[in-house]
């Protein structure tokens, strides 16, 4: 790893809390690899969540089948609200993915050691969230069977896509994001897959992990190339953290619609994405570390830091709301002015106030170290933020569309059961993939944790007292 040169430097006090308990290389590897290799050790909640997710996934399949059969008219979209749940959920899922990339790439470049124990499953979360998001732009088109026309490819029609359209930028942004995230995640997995290959007793597992390990033997040359590749990927990913959601925000900012046509959108969308992403990481990390006894690795310190980032990005997002309202008034533009008024007092006002409570008010409890230290509070706040960010997209998309310039064409947007079916279905897909991942791949980077052990305790760590008192109960 790039930070190996710092291994001998003294660690900061806070960093000492990143690993709890009497861990050495062996226990770290045992604990993490054990989740995958001991297939009998999965807790009941895994089966419960997986079964529910699988059910919802099947519901989504039914929804998509009917959607392809009847058309997008099964949804609640209409004139004037041409976009509804489709784009709300697209933006929501893309946003959730952002925390993963931020953790893996930016925190890596900034040498934040606390990323180590959460980056792997945050990256997986990114990947699955982007997969969920990717379904929407495809399926929201009226004729999904020709949606490939959005890609630039040589064709007999002699037609390129229209490069002025933000939707084309989206295609590039999201597909690049998906590719880089997948590569990043996979490259990071290679050494761990080799560990699993070496430890697996089951022949099939050995073969499969062996294929994934790409012949990794852990030689110095491997490590050297690995680190170069990983660093380059991190460098590639870093601009993506900022660019993908900026470009998604261009879908709106480039238009002429009041409520969309706003220059604050790119930074505000990026901040919102990270906000939502950390909320989702917390939502996943808190129960999983409990179910799999990983509190030594994902410590309360990790949660604390994630909460702080959430608070910071949340404040940026609130700043965005305040600026939108301010400029609605200050611009003197009647359409912008009405938009703000309509958000506050129109038919969707409860959602707007709900948004402010979810994203603006509730997360302020995170100022208090005492509340931040409370895991149930953190879990609750992260759920509230996820809801808030979803509401934000609802406020931005249909609420701006439903009353625009000419009052004669104003309407209402009401989602149908099929809208909900599709949304809940993608939640099913997400958790389905996430829980498969937890069960069949190491959810925490084993070799990076070993690296952390080295840096926190040096080679003589075996006989030392624990750095902090373990709060861990034995894994179930």
């Amino acid at each position, binding site marked *: 790893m790039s930070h190996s040169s710092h291994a001998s430097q003294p660690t900061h006090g806070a960093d000492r809390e990143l690993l709890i308990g009497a861990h050495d290389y062996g226990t770290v590897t045992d604990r993490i690899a054990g989740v995958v290799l001991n297939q009998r050790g999965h807790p009941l909640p895994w089966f419960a969540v997986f079964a529910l997710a699988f059910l919802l996934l099947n519901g989504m399949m039914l929804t998509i089948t009917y959607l392809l059969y009847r058309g997008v008219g099964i949804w609640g979209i209409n004139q004037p609200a041409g976009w509804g749940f489709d784009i709300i959920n697209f933006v929501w899922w893309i946003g959730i993915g952002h925390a993963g990339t931020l953790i893996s790439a930016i925190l890596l470049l900034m040498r934040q050691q606390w990323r180590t124990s959460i980056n792997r499953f945050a990256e997986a979360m990114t990947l699955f969230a982007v997969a969920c998001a990717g379904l929407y732009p495809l399926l929201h088109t009226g004729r999904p069977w020709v949606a490939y026309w959005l890609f630039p490819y040589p064709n007999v029609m002699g037609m390129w896509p229209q490069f002025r359209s933000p939707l084309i930028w989206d295609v590039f942004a999201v597909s690049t994001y998906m590719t880089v995230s997948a590569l990043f995640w996979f490259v990071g997995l290679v050494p761990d897959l080799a560990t699993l290959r070496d430890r697996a007793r089951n022949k099939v597992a050995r073969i499969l992990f062996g294929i994934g390990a790409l012949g990794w033997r852990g030689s110095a040359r491997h490590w050297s190339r690995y680190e170069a590749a990983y660093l380059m990927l991190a460098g590639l990913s870093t601009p993506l953290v900022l660019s993908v959601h900026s470009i998604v925000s261009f879908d709106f900012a480039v238009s002429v619609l009041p409520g969309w046509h706003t220059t604050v959108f790119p930074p505000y969308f990026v901040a919102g994405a990270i906000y939502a992403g950390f909320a989702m990481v917390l939502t996943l990390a808190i129960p999983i570390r409990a179910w799999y006894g990983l509190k030594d690795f994902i410590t309360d310190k990790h949660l604390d830091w994630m909460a702080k980032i959430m608070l910071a990005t949340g404040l940026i997002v609130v700043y965005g709301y305040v600026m939108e309202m301010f400029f609605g008034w200050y611009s003197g533009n009647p359409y912008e002015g009405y938009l703000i008024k309509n958000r506050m007092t129109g038919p969707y006002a409860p959602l707007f106030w709900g948004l402010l409570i979810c994203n603006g008010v509730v997360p302020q409890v995170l100022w208090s170290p005492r509340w931040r230290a409370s895991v149930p509070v953190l879990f609750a706040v992260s759920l509230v933020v996820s809801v808030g960010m979803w509401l934000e997209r609802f406020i931005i998309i249909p609420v701006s569309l439903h009353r625009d310039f000419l*009052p004669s064409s104003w309407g209402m947007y009401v989602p149908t059961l099929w809208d909900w079916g599709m949304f809940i279905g993608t939640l099913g897909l997400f958790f389905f993939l996430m829980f498969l991942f937890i069960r069949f791949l190491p959810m925490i980077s084993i070799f990076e944790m070993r690296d952390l052990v080295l840096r926190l305790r040096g080679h003589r760590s075996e006989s030392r007292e624990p750095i902090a008192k373990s709060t861990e109960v034995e894994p179930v």
Partner: protein
Amino acid sequence: MSSVGERQEARGTVQEMVGSRLADLSSRLSGRQWRSLDELADTPEFQAWVEDEFPERASLLTLDRRKFFQVMGASLALAGLTGCRFLPQRRAVPFVQAVEDLVPGKPRYYATAVVLAGIGTGVLARSNDGRPTKLEGNPLHPGSLGATDAITQATLLDLYDPDRTRNVLRNGAISTWDAFLADVRATLASQRAARGAGVRILTGAITSPTLADQIQRLLDAYPEARWYQWEAVNRDNVRAGTEQAFGRPLNPVYSFDTANVVLTLDADPLDQMPGHVRYARDIMSGRVVRPDARSMNRLYAVESVLSNMGATADHRLPVRPREVGTIAVAIARRLGLDVPGVTISDAQSRWVDACVADLKANKGQCVVVVGDHQPPALHALAARMNEELGAVGSAVSYTEPLYPNWHDALGGLSELTDDMDADKVRLLIMLGVNPVYDAPADVPFGKALKKVGCAVHLGLRKNETSELSRWHVPEAHSLEAWGDCRAYDGTASVIQPIIRPLFGGKSAIELIASLAGRPRDGYQIVREHWRSALGTADFDRRWRRAIHDGLIEGTEFPTVSVRVQSPDRSLRGLSEAIAPGRSAGLEVAFAPDPTIWDGRFASNGWLQELPKPITRLTWDNAALIAPSTAQAASVADGDLVELQLRGRTVVAPAKVQPGQPKDLVTLHLGYGRSQAGAIGSLVGFSAGALRTRDAMWFTSGISLRRTGRRYTFAKTEHHHAIRDGKINGTQGRDIVRVMPFAEMEADEQDANHAASHEPAHGGEHPSLYPRDEHAYDGHRWGMSIDLSLCTGCNACVIACQAENNIPVVGKEQVLRGREMHWIRIDRYYEGDPDDPTVHHQPVLCMHCENAPCEPVCPVAATVHSHEGLNQMVYNRCVGTRYCSNNCPYKVRRFNFLNYANHHDVPIKQLLQNPNVTVRGRGVMEKCTFCVQRINAARIEAKKQGRPVRDGEVVTACQAACPPQAIVFGDIADPNSAVSRAKRESRDYSLLDDLNTRPRLTYLAKLTNKHPQLEKSA
């Protein structure tokens, strides 16, 4: 073309082959001779034998092989006969032998007429390879002058209605024409001795000279027989009113173009009166303000329901229908007529004073018009007022009645019902009427009809009346049969068929002729009638001319010179027509529905889905109540209320309607039908269930009670924000610009004095981007709509729908906000909710120079043409809907579902305009400025080696518009009409500040208020 030929040929061989096998069969037909299979198939015995599922009492099982083949062969031959009905079979010449001057793929136009309640409007029917696909107004016809109304346009859809009856039905079971004739002729024969005492004929209001002649001949043969004309929306009051005024019924004909001041008393000459298409042109021609026409008429409307007339008028006075008489009397008194004094409020008094001052100042150039629903005494009073004002002979003239045998429709129907109930009627022939549904609630027509042995109903579709009749005969649509009619001024037109009857129907003329024992084809009957009417001299030329022009020259009724009778006769009953002061309690008024009329168009999807003027309701009627009345009764918009009138009850959804007079419930007729096919059955509620003989139009004593249940209307506009007791429909936005006429004149004079040629409008906004992204070296198509002239009549909407193959989506989809109309008429209220100002604004694709939709489409499916059209490439569209989201005018329409799917109803395919793509599911669409018409004109011009002339391209909306509010043309040509319109000082772009630079601009609405009333308004 060749396939048609082959089919003809193939049919020939089948006929020969089958012919020999039918030798046995023909011997069964009592030795009758038959020349063709058509004729053979028409014999009742044969039809009965073939159509009977188990033919001729002999089970199929007992048939031997030979007989089985005979039956099979006959069925096969019949299948061949019924195939391909839309081509005229008798003269089905294979196209391999090219028909002279028929170019395949090129539409042909035929002059004909469309009839509503007897009154004809001349149209030119477009025929694409034998299919009528569009109706345009006939510029030569006085009732059209090239324009149409929405209902006229929509009659085309009735032709292709899959719910039309396809067989003669006897008590609902399939029968044959011959069986029908045999039965009716037998009944007639049995009546011969009684001189037809048991024979009754019931028609709608008819003006057809030929049909009247046919019926008269039948009556001559059966002198005791009776002929009644019934219309639910009838003109009994006009008839009685003119009789009261002049001693005999007369037909008032207006020439609004000569009037500077028009006062309407609960009348809507723009939308409802016979001749309204012409009247709209005439009235609005007085409001055309151009550099060369600098005057404006002034319209006063006293009315009980907010109509397009009231919305267009400079001054509108909303009063309950019973108060209309009071106001009329007040005006008459101030005009110096000897009428009783009445008390009216101060505000009303000021209104009346201003109106009277204008009327007096414009003697000889003004007119008073009374609505058909007001009592006869008021019509007589108006006749006196018009005489006093010198309007007779200029703005109003009188002719002999349009309707032959014009009698009291209501009295006639009551008499008929009584006779039926008293078992006096043996044979009842009903031509295209539906009294079981639309008779007043206290005329038990349906009950009485069951007592009539031989009841015959001729109609396009089954309806409530046909259900109770022994015989139901499919009627030929007016585009399928020969006929004739008269326009509002008496001008006769010959109706010519454009297509053979799709379902083998008969016209009323043919039916009556067949009963009288002269079964001839409609063509011969109509032609012979006119030969005798016009004389044989030079008849062939005149006949051809009449067919070609769509009217018979010189047939308009001459003006009769009459004087109003002495006051004691003409003003009889006036005091009863005056409302007795401020009566307590709620009143009710009935009105024909603006789109489906009295229910006869309930099966017409275009008209059902057409947003009604003012209310913007689709697929529904409602109990309209004023905002203040709603508040007093604590009724909200969409509450289901129970209306009770003299023991009769109806549950209706309430709609709070700005501009509705206080304490008045207005109910539109035509809804709540039980037998109106798949489209019209069980839609809305039946207002007719409350209507009684003594209160055909309005009465008091209705009670309204909330049921506590709610109802959702499929409205296309949802908002009229009320703030501080004022409605502000445009939310204070600069959408509809309105300016007083006087102010505009003053402004322009100032501008001229300042010698400034700088236009006061259309200043270009600064931009960082190049001014003209697109270079145009040819035409630049543009449009101008004069908001002063738009009456909100909806003709353009249906014209566009017909021209551009726009599907009907149904109520459920309208509720979701997915109506597909490419042009819509936006309606905004402004001011006091009880008496608002109404603005109409037609909105279609603006074809912006800087179109926001274009850059956001990811696949370049919407692009700019080299002539500046914003084009939609359907087969490139993937359906992201981004263009629609980014359209500030929201004129784009998306096929959320497969709305245009006609696979399940193949007959609908015949309706489609072949020059416009039918859009599939998932594709965006919008107004194209009728690009197919632009291209047709361009091709024509190229062929002749000349540029496209100004006025050569006429869009569908423009063609239909009665007041000619829409101008289209090339803005690159500074002399084109559209360029001239755009140079007017009141030209403006909608949402100008977005810098979209629309190709469609509007001319600000001008008002011409009386100076004394201006302040209060």
